[in-house]
């Protein structure tokens, strides 16, 4: 390649907000359900229906705007975006064009060259469309309006990103902020976060932007990375051949590793945006702003800095613990009860994460309380139970939030610390396993392991292995 090319990337990110009901009606936003079971005249566009704004949607949008340093528009409106398509029941989508709720913000990302600000052009509220399901056999398309009317915010960035890494960093930052706010669970794979990539290339040093394309159907960070790299190359190839880049929307196919131009009908669209006359203007008062500002949580960056000062735990632990607000809250609340940040951290980082993965759950789904985790840690501190038992109790607690003290009582799991009974059992084991005893006396250190195992078995696991080991050595 004779010339050096710079990639210029902007993102349009759609986020499904975690409200119980839709943006303009009271239907449930719950994922799944029989087709067209979470619908009503409003979200299927029946004649005579009218929209009514869900206030929580506005609050979430403002919260995200504040957390991304945006100006909050004090007088904003909803606009109708008119286009015909079956997933759009009224053939217009209620969105915001002229007066979006948030403008001129930024997020900071870490790059190899230090901190970088990625500008946010605007954030606006809009409704999601329904889902089209193509039935290959019958050559028909079926429409499910469950998703129609689910609230979205669209976050439009400035074309400030220059590489796939920066894009990933930006998306991760956005996701962290939005998850911390509880505004959405932001899962690319599930569609609660969707990213469209606008990409162009230009010669290094050029001032003007090149022609950009838009890429859709990017369902994972990996796909985003591949799509960016692929499209950069495709555009550079075109330019090197003396051809022009066509402004179009392309669909990325991650399995094939390439993109296809979508039918160009979209490009010539005039959406005839105008303010929706069925909805009144949104006036945001100082009081409302102050209230939402007051509810802003401590975000990850501040939290990580605070943990470093307050708790004596390694950076790696801090990183894992602050990945989600839920985990961080659990950590802080448990430490508040029992102290011992390192022990709490271990339980969360090792056993909890393991079980979450096993059971295919998310940190938000954790059932056990800080009080119970603290209780479990206390039991291990007192040596009332050994580490194997502790793991068993933890799993029970993880599944049902049972009180660990209660569980240990009911299942008789307390470590037997009665040295007399222990001595008796050990003597029995010694008597029953003469070969191992001889092996040990003959210098085979490992034979003691077997004897410890047998003792533990005889004690039904209710002994402290270290103590058993020591006693065995004494008696032998």
């Amino acid at each position, binding site marked *: 390649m004779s010339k050096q090319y710079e990639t210029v990337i902007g993102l349009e990110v759609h986020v499904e907000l975690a409200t119980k009901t839709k943006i303009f009606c009271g239907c449930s936003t719950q994922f799944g359900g029989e087709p067209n079971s979470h619908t009503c005249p409003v979200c299927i566009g029946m004649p005579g229906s009218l929209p009514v704004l869900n206030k929580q949607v506005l609050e979430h949008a403002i919260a995200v705007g504040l957390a991304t340093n945006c100006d909050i528009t004090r007088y904003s409106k909803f606009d109708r975006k008119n286009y015909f398509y079956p997933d759009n029941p009224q053939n217009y989508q209620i969105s915001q064009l002229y007066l979006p709720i948030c403008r001129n913000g930024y997020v900071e990302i870490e790059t190899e060259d230090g901190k970088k600000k990625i500008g946010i052009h605007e954030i606006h509220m809009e409704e999601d469309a329904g889902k089209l399901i193509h039935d290959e056999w019958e050559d028909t398309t079926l429409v499910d309006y469950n998703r129609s009317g689910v609230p979205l915010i669209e976050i439009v960035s400035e074309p400030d990103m220059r590489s796939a890494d920066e894009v990933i960093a930006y998306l991760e930052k956005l996701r962290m902020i939005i998850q911390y706010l509880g505004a959405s669970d932001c899962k690319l794979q599930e569609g609660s976060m969707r990213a469209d990539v606008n990409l162009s290339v230009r010669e290094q040093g050029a001032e003007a932007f090149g022609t950009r394309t838009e890429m859709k159907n990017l369902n994972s960070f990996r796909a985003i990375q591949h799509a960016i790299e692929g499209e950069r190359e495709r555009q550079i190839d075109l330019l090197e051949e003396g051809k022009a880049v066509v402004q179009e929307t392309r669909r990325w196919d991650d399995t094939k590793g390439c993109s296809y131009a979508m039918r160009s009908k979209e490009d010539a669209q005039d959406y005839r945006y105008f303010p929706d006359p069925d*909805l009144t203007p949104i006036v945001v008062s100082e009081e409302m702003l102050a209230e939402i500002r007051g509810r802003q949580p401590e975000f990850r960056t501040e939290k990580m800095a605070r943990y470093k000062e307050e708790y004596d735990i390694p950076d790696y632990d801090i990183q894992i613990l602050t990945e989600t607000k839920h985990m961080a809250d659990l950590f802080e609340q448990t430490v508040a009860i029992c102290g011992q940040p390192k022990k709490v951290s271990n339980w969360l980082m090792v056993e909890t994460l393991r079980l979450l993965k096993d059971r295919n759950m998310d940190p938000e789904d954790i059932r056990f309380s800080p009080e119970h985790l603290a209780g479990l840690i206390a039991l291990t501190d007192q040596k009332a139970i050994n580490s194997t038992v502790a793991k068993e109790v933890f799993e029970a607690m993880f599944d049902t939030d049972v009180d660990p003290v209660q569980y240990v009582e009911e299942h008789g799991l307390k470590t037997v610390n009665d040295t007399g009974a222990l001595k008796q059992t050990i003597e029995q084991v010694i008597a029953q396993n003469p070969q191992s005893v001889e092996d040990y006396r003959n210098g085979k250190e490992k034979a003691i392991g077997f004897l410890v195992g047998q003792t533990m078995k005889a004690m039904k696991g209710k002994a402290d292995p270290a103590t058993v080991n020591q006693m065995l050595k004494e008696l032998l």
Partner: protein
Amino acid sequence: MKKEILQYTALELAAKIKAGEVTAPEALEAVLAQIEEKEKEYHCYVTVDAEGARARAKEVQAQIEAGTLTGPFAGVPVAIKDNMNTQGILTTCSSKILGNFIPTFSAEAVKKLEEAGAVLIGKTNMDEFAMGSTTETSAYGVTKNPWNTAHVPGGSSGGSAAAVAADECFFALGSDTGGSIRQPASFCGVVGMKPTYGTVSRYGLIAYGSSLDQIGPLCKNVSDCAAVLEVIAGHDPKDSTSVEVENTRYTESLVDDVKGLKIGIPRDYFGEGLDPQVKDAVLQAAQVLRAKGAIVEEFDLSLVKYAIPCYYTIAAAEASSNLERFDGIKYGYRTKDYEGLHPMYKKSRSEGFGAEVKRRIMLGSFVLSSGYYDAYYLKALKVKALIKKAFDEAFAKYDVILGPVAPTTAPELGKSLADPIQMYLGDIYTISVNLAGLPGISVPCGKDEKGLPIGLQLIGDCFKEHTLIRAAYTYEQARGEFGTP
């Protein structure tokens, strides 16, 4: 007996039913007999639900006798314009594209009337999707003016107005976006009222011009209108543009007194184009009010000539979007032969919509399109604000504005559709009232030499229905009997 019953106003009938002198089924049979006799000539209705109405009248009568139903319209048969949803009953907007549409819910205003005990007779004919001034754009045939069947009843609530005039119901609901209640009321010699925008819920009204539409009553007299409005007015949380009105006890304003009431007559309304007979009748009505103690004075309203282009730009723009949902996908008409999605859209809508509707959709799409939005739509919104301002200035000086409803009496059938622009110009006196969101009422005040009715229009400041009703009531009392066709 039946003909006698038909003479009652809605409130008089309600009183008779309450007193046990007439039963709900009797009242309904009287109306149904009248419909049987007159409908083939007048064609006021798209749908008459005789079976449903009979069942309901029976049910209502039982409830009245048991004392469980005490609403102000208990047992009174009502007609509903066919652009308001009625659960389980065909609702067509007089269009082919909704020729098979049965709503799953009723409009809020309809529900309120039913709670008040009214008995739904059926759905009245209208201009298709409320676009028109003569009820001639209906896909189900024209309605004839009961006063002279060679003439139109007006529009778009022509069927409702004619039904009231012809005693095919005791009262009716209509909708008014640019004059569609007041103008047919004027042409048919009945009382019609459009309330302040936001007073009556639009939930269940199939939208035409969302920022202009309002539902209102068409009745035999002002008292009935006030009583109907009292029932249907009120905040509805399902309609974001619905307002919490402080005092909806409109019947309290049925008071014969206009002493000191300041009435303004816009000079601009009495210029060229106004039929001299209409002018005389309206000015005479002003004299009647002056004789009763009102202070009547001429003034300049201004901006009158911009009202029509402003209205048609805004209403068509909103309508072009509101009517997008009629696409043959979910409900309504779908064309028989098609290949592909977009051809299906085009064919269904081309076949399902009439000419006037298509004209306004195209006009509306144009004024919203890229490159024209600022020059047309945005400009029209600004003019709308200026028109409102002009009225605000007028209402700083006057309590009520008085003028004609239409420049002429009812035109002959078949004469209006050939020149749409000319037809649009007929809305000149009613249209600004919608643009400013104000309440307006049409009260019969005279007849032309052919015997066709002339309406007097009174316009009030926003949320001042009480003043308006008092003025209208006083005039009506002084005028005396108007007569029926």
